[in-house]
């Protein structure tokens, strides 16, 4: 599968008062055409920052370097207006939570704002399309809800409107930012249904989440990120059956349904060796002293010392 978007050593730094935070340390990742890529990591691992760097919603004082290649063009080197026009036309972002809707615009307008801008849809036409979309997303009577404002929506309605925002109009890729944050189990099930429907409306999807159980049921390929670095990429099935990187295994074990085993707090971020030395089954003496580098495997890749895998 040829790649739709390619991130080449994306590096992001923020300034917080005197100290600077190195949010992303050289990310290399590609979103292939026709796949669902899941990016998984703890909160504070910088996973949402990657989405913000695509849509250029990073704060003013952020320093972004590296390349985002789409159709052979580096989006970061293009002039801002042209790049945003291209991004708006081909990609869509599904945010999370009530705060991500404009409080003074009606729901149908916010759903159809993107297609109206890029595909020349007229207002009347767009209004009908939005009703159609919401019906497809299991909403019994969209008549009322299309006119609702943000403060009049319930949890369930909000979710459908956010997903509708992502799938309205043709897109090559939909980006989901922490879709399951703060949802209880039942609403998470409903979201799964919505995402499966969204899958049929676009080519590829990029889902960022900290919820491994959710990602397992939606993603084809999984990338694990920890403290701004990608530690493992692999096919979904293979990832959950035998995760290679110790951090991935820890993430899988810490899922609540696995009975809350106590297996963390032993990651010490030493600079010269591999930080995961203490929690890695395959750890050997050499891991203590030299930095792991990225190894390409057929199903993805791993940040580890080469000779262990020979």
């Amino acid at each position: 599968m040829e790649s739709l978007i390619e991130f080449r050593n994306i590096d992001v730094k923020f300034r917080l008062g005197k100290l600077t935070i190195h949010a992303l340390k050289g990310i290399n990742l590609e979103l292939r055409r026709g796949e669902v890529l899941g990016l998984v990591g703890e909160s504070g691992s910088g996973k949402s920052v990657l989405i913000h760097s695509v849509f250029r919603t990073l704060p003013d004082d952020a320093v972004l370097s590296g390349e985002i290649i789409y159709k052979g063009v580096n989006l970061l080197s293009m002039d801002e207006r042209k790049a945003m026009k291209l991004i708006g036309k081909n990609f869509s972002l599904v945010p999370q939570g009530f705060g991500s809707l404009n409080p003074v615009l009606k729901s149908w307008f916010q759903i159809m704002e993107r297609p109206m801008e890029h595909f020349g849809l007229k207002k009347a036409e767009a209004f009908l399309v939005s009703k159609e979309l919401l019906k497809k997303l299991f909403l019994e009577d969209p008549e009322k809800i299309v006119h609702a404002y943000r403060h009049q929506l319930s949890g369930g309605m909000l979710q459908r409107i956010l997903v509708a925002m992502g799938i309205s109009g043709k897109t090559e890729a939909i980006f989901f930012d922490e879709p399951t944050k703060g949802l209880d189990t039942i609403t998470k099930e409903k979201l799964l249904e919505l995402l499966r429907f969204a899958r049929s409306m676009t080519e590829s999807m990029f889902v960022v989440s900290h919820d491994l159980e959710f990602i397992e049921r939606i993603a084809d390929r999984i990338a694990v990120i920890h403290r701004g670095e990608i530690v493992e990429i692999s096919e979904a099935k293979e990832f959950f059956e035998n995760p290679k990187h110790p951090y991935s295994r820890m993430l899988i074990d810490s899922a609540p349904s696995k009975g809350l085993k106590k297996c963390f707090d032993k990651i010490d971020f030493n600079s010269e060796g591999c930080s995961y030395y203490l929690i890695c089954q395959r750890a050997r003496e050499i891991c203590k002293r030299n930095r792991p580098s990225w190894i390409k495997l057929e199903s993805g890749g791993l940040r580890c010392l080469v000779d262990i895998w020979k």
Partner: protein
Amino acid sequence: MSSEERILIGCELSKEFRTRKRIIRALQRASVEIRKGERVALVGESGSGKTTLAKILAYILKPSEGRLVFRGKNLAEMDKRELRIFRTKVQYVPQYSDLALDPLWHIYDSIAEPLRIHGMVESRQEELERILEIADLLNLSIDHLRRKPRDLSGGELQRAVIARAIILKPEVLIADEPTSMLDPVTQSRIIWAIMNAREKIGFSTILITHELSIAKAISERLYVMFGGRIVEFGFTEDIFTEPLHPYTSSLIERDVYLLMNEEKIAEGGVFESPGCEFRFRCRFAEEKCKTPPPEIRMGKKRTVRCWLYGEPDRV
């Protein structure tokens, strides 16, 4: 296992909130009891009244009806002095939020504050020892204690909040969804911190969560709540091996059937018509369910509130 002595009992607790247009019955006649050193969990969707019940048990919220009894004494009749003692014995950890600790205070002072309010400590030295002891239990380092809330990560902040709650060595800790907004790794760190502290200090815990698997992992007894009512309660293994109430079984099997008619019931625990609130989403719903189901005792310390289980015998 927990000894027989019952410390905190809530009987027939209900709570109503009046807004201009309607009355929200957030909690309807819920009865709860906590034994010394016992691990209890309260499970339910958002809007099922579990947070309201938690706040009433911690006496932050006064119930519209019903009595709350602590060690045989009704809270409503307690005078100022007795209430202060209750405050040291029963502690409450609020839901995760950014303003969980005073942004201007250092973590050390925020944790030490309860000691200073109740004058539990004679010297600065003793205060320091107790705080270091608690911080070690929740693996918070000296460096964390010196920082301000905005310099801590989500997990560290929540652990600091828990440290503040258990510094007074309470008998009951009520934790209201301490991990709902956090990722699994941080979540398990916090739950482990609570359980670790529990072993050392010996307080009984009431954990409020919508995460069924967490409830299963760390509780002996379980209350399942829906629509402001306790629909089922009993020992955790019994409930997980043989769930009685249709809602509990669909929760455990992640039953997709629940998705369909969600729009019918009004949002936010508001149920105009009396009767079983679950009837809109229940497979077995029939005419009878329009009248409120009684609480039926199904064996030792095991009850369910559903017409499926025959006529109401004396509870």
